[in-house]
């Protein structure tokens, strides 16, 4: 018996579902986020780069097939530093056919744009952005690495927070600010 009809009110399915990926040496970190309300759907790190180039494409293809994102977000290689640019370019070259065939628009953002998006709250560093995101999405607190010391290499789990920061930047961006990646 229905006792509380208010509970039946529903919202239509979200129009925006963003798959954000952050390539790292071993593979890539990813998040799937839905907008309005902002909900984190899935997140994780996929280790694929050491297996084969095709493995990353296969793994990303399964994510696209499963979540049917309306946008894919990735760091802008042209705005990155030299080594980072090389690794982003290599990753994108490996998955370019998949991205082209999926038909999902790909958007790119630079680190500077992420800092601007979070900067209004006085949050500038990667660690501070990650901590702010963990506060907003408590479900990923267990994945939050300890702040990095200068002699440490970056924890691979940070790629989840990087991917999430790009997704949030994309959703916060005005449509005019959104920049389509050039398909290779």
């Amino acid at each position: 018996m229905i006792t509380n009809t208010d509970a039946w009110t529903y919202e239509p399915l979200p129009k925006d579902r963003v798959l954000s990926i952050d390539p790292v040496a071993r593979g890539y970190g990813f998040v799937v986020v839905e907008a309005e309300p902002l909900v984190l759907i899935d997140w994780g790190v996929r280790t694929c780069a050491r297996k084969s180039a095709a493995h990353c494409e296969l793994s990303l293809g399964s994510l696209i097939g499963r979540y049917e994102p309306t946008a894919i977000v990735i760091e802008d290689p042209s705005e990155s530093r030299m080594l980072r640019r090389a690794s982003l370019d290599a990753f994108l070259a490996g998955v370019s056919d998949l991205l082209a065939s999926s038909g999902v628009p790909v958007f790119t953002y630079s680190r500077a744009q992420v800092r601007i998006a979070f900067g209004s709250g006085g949050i500038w560093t990667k660690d501070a952005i990650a901590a702010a995101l963990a506060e907003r999405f408590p479900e990923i607190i267990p994945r939050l690495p300890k702040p990095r010391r200068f002699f440490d290499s970056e924890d691979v789990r940070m790629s989840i927070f990087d991917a999430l920061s790009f997704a949030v930047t994309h959703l916060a961006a005005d449509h005019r600010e959104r920049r389509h990646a050039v398909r290779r």
Partner: protein
Amino acid sequence: LRNYLKTYRKRSGLSQRELTYLLGQKHRAKVSRYERNERTPALRTLIGYETIFRVVLRDLFRGVFVDIAPGILDRARTLSRVLDGQQRTRAVGQKVDFLNKVIESLRPKP
């Protein structure tokens, strides 16, 4: 997205193996198939999910709910119109009131 089973499981921090145990299932593969929408859980399992995550089924299977809600809304409106055309007894009035509540609640938010 048809279901959000994986989202709620990951939010809980439970592994598929642990959830399989909680649901009283034997094989983890089943939970994986439910999450990938390759298999529909049995009624007992569905109620198990609802109980464990404390989330109503229409939120766990939001895609399915949003699929069927417009149909229910249409049929509720049709039935309400048909009943409105009938002689207004107490029983008919009760049905119409109930259907109006269903219609109101199934109207998607703009």
